[in-house]
């Protein structure tokens, strides 16, 4: 149901993953993930090693944070994030790159899984693994299945349906075996035999590579999927692979599914087999106006300004920088802000691409309804929200919106439909908190 076909613009598929050089200083936010911020356990002046725990998860929905570099803690202060809002962070001056000695840095691939089911979940928690598909939900929580529910399917999301992004594409080509081991670890943690890896048909190379590798791993099935945005949205992916629909307000586990990103599977491999905490991720640095496209392996906490300097500055016609894909990503207003665990890209958008066209009146053509993958009525939301009827919009399933942006993409009247929906969702959450 629904969906749109934005220009793919996968410019950086051929750019191999390069290791991004370490900067002089990194800034590590205490809230790198969905949920409560972690509590710092280091102080100003303390020496830290790469991979050392620097902030501990105390709340339930929270993740440990490890030092991405070795050096000395400069200070714990509030720092502005990419939106310009100040948030607490640990600032570390980089000195060399000395890892904690528990981490196995050798390139050998370790395929034997020695840990038990609960040990794996504890390991994921200890290593601060979060979902790298964008939402940064702490991974270990997904594997603590609530009582009375049973997981039947493990689904690995390698769809990467957002235009421009290629980090998953590259990881699949360069680390296929590690991913397969990671998937096997997750299967063990979940107690399921089979795992499905969903990949969009526009990535023939990764499909071939993963298929070839899957032959060695019994029970892992590579599932090529139709090219359509948002094929990689959790509920849409579950529907495409299992045929099951996640009911409104329910979680994937309610239909027996657990979904993880392919990048997370790689991080899981590194955490469980190599004892390596989540201190780096793969970022696509791309844009039509850039002479060279890149996929970098970036330590968390490196500022966007460092990346921009490294690629030799921005072209003159740059209008916007986006963290994430062009459909769901967030605009960066503060380049000094550091990257976080969930940062998947730095996308350079030109003046021409960024300009929103003039807003016209809604003629109720219904294109937004056709495009909505959740079967909602964005034009109706817009009318209700503009008349201050948030509750009525919620009664019409406003909260089921996954904010994919198909409606705003397709609207011939250029109405800011998603803006209005996000605004109303925020307002409704506030209303609920007040109650």
């Amino acid at each position, binding site marked *: 149901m629904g969906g749109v076909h934005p220009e793919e613009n996968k410019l950086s598929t051929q750019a191999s993953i390069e290791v991004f050089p370490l900067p002089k200083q990194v800034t590590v936010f205490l809230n790198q993930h969905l949920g409560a911020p972690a509590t710092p356990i280091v102080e100003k002046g303390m020496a830290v090693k790469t991979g050392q725990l620097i902030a501990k998860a105390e709340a339930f929905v929270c993740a440990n944070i490890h030092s991405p570099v070795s050096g000395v803690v400069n200070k714990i202060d509030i720092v502005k994030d990419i939106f*310009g809002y100040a948030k607490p962070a640990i600032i570390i001056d980089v000195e060399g790159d000395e890892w904690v000695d528990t981490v196995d840095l050798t390139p050998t691939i370790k395929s034997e899984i020695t840990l038990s089911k609960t040990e794996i979940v504890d390991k994921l928690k200890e290593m601060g693994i979060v979902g790298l598909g964008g939402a940064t939900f702490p991974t270990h929580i997904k594997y603590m299945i609530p009582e009375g529910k049973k997981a039947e399917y493990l689904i690995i999301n390698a769809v990467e349906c957002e235009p421009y992004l290629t980090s998953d594409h590259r990881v699949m080509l360069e680390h296929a075996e590690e991913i397969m081991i990671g998937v096997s670890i997750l299967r063990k943690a979940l107690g399921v035999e089979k795992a499905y890896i969903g990949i969009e048909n526009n990535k023939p190379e990764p499909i071939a590579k993963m298929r070839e590798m899957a032959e060695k791993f019994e029970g892992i099935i590579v599932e090529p999927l139709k090219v359509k945005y948002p094929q990689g949205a959790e509920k849409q992916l579950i529907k495409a692979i299992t045929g099951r629909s996640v009911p409104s307000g329910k979680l994937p586990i309610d239909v027996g599914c657990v979904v993880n990103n392919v990048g997370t599977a790689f991080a899981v491999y590194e955490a469980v087999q190599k004892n390596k905490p989540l201190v780096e991720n793969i970022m696509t640095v791309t844009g039509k106006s850039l002479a060279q496209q890149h996929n970098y392996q970036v330590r968390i906490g490196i500022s966007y300004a460092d990346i921009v300097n490294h690629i030799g500055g921005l072209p003159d016609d740059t209008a916007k920088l986006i963290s994430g894909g062009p459909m769901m990503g967030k605009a960066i*207003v503060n380049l000094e802000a550091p990257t976080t665990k969930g940062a998947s890209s730095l996308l350079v958008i030109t003046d021409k691409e960024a300009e929103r066209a003039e807003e016209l009146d809604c003629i109720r053509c219904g294109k937004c309804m056709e495009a909505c993958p959740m079967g909602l009525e964005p034009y109706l939301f817009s009318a209700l929200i503009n008349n201050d009827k948030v509750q009525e919009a919620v009664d019409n399933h406003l909260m089921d919106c996954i904010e994919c942006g198909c409606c705003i993409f397709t609207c011939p009247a250029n109405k800011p439909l998603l803006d209005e929906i996000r605004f109303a969702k925020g307002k409704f959450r506030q209303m609920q908190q007040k109650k």
Partner: protein
Amino acid sequence: MTEFILPAVLVLGIIGAIFGILLYFIAQKFKVVEDPKIDEIADVLPGANCGGCGKAGCRALAEAFAKQGNMEGLRCPAGGDEVAAKVAAILGIEASTAEPQVAVIRCSIGCTASEPKSKYQGMQSCAFANSLYVGESGCAYGCLGLGDCYKACQFDAIKLDPETGFPIVDDDKCVGCGACAQACPRHVIELRNKGPKKRRVYVSCVNKEKGAMARKTCANACIGCGKCAKICPFGAITVENNLAYIDYTKCKLCRKCESECPTGAIKAVNFPPKRESQTSVVEQPTTVNNENKEN
């Protein structure tokens, strides 16, 4: 023909009469006795339903007045003393008076002097922009300039500067209902006493960042240096979270703080122009002040 019409008219007429009588007795039985004063009071209230009194609307306030029988804790800020006197007359008591208040925009919008740090193309709503990011000015505390206060004002008292898009309050039209203050997602707008001859001194900034950071964002930001608090002879100024606040109940409008402020964050409005010798220390008045003086 008549043989059809007559029975129909008769039957309907009889049914109507029976129900009419029935309804009369039911109405008598279940009559809701309403204080006649409620209607009277509701008539004298402005009827804008601005919510400035804290009630759901004018009718709700009228009910509260009638129920309470006095005016303690109840007041129509939009109507002011005039309406208060009328309500008091209806209730048969003496009217309470209160200092009239006015909405004050505590942002000097000094950021507009520099280039906007980003360009916003989204939904034209401060509340929404606030949920996304700091705004075009780069200040996480100040006015976003998308006009939520303008939309909230029922009294046509807020205008948007055509050039900058930032709001300007018309002192004469503002009734101090506080609808704009409620609508502002950044809590930039405060209700302050109108003051004698509409003269007021206030800190025109709500930035709680540390001095250097605040100064970097805006030339007119309060940096929390505390100079104003030190010089104030009446102890009206407090500095909390790197931000000074002038208590309007204590301020005697001496304007010592205004000349002491190193960033020009303290504004004194509607005073006659200062003498030459003193103007050198005072920063250029912003557009907000100019407008106020014209009014």
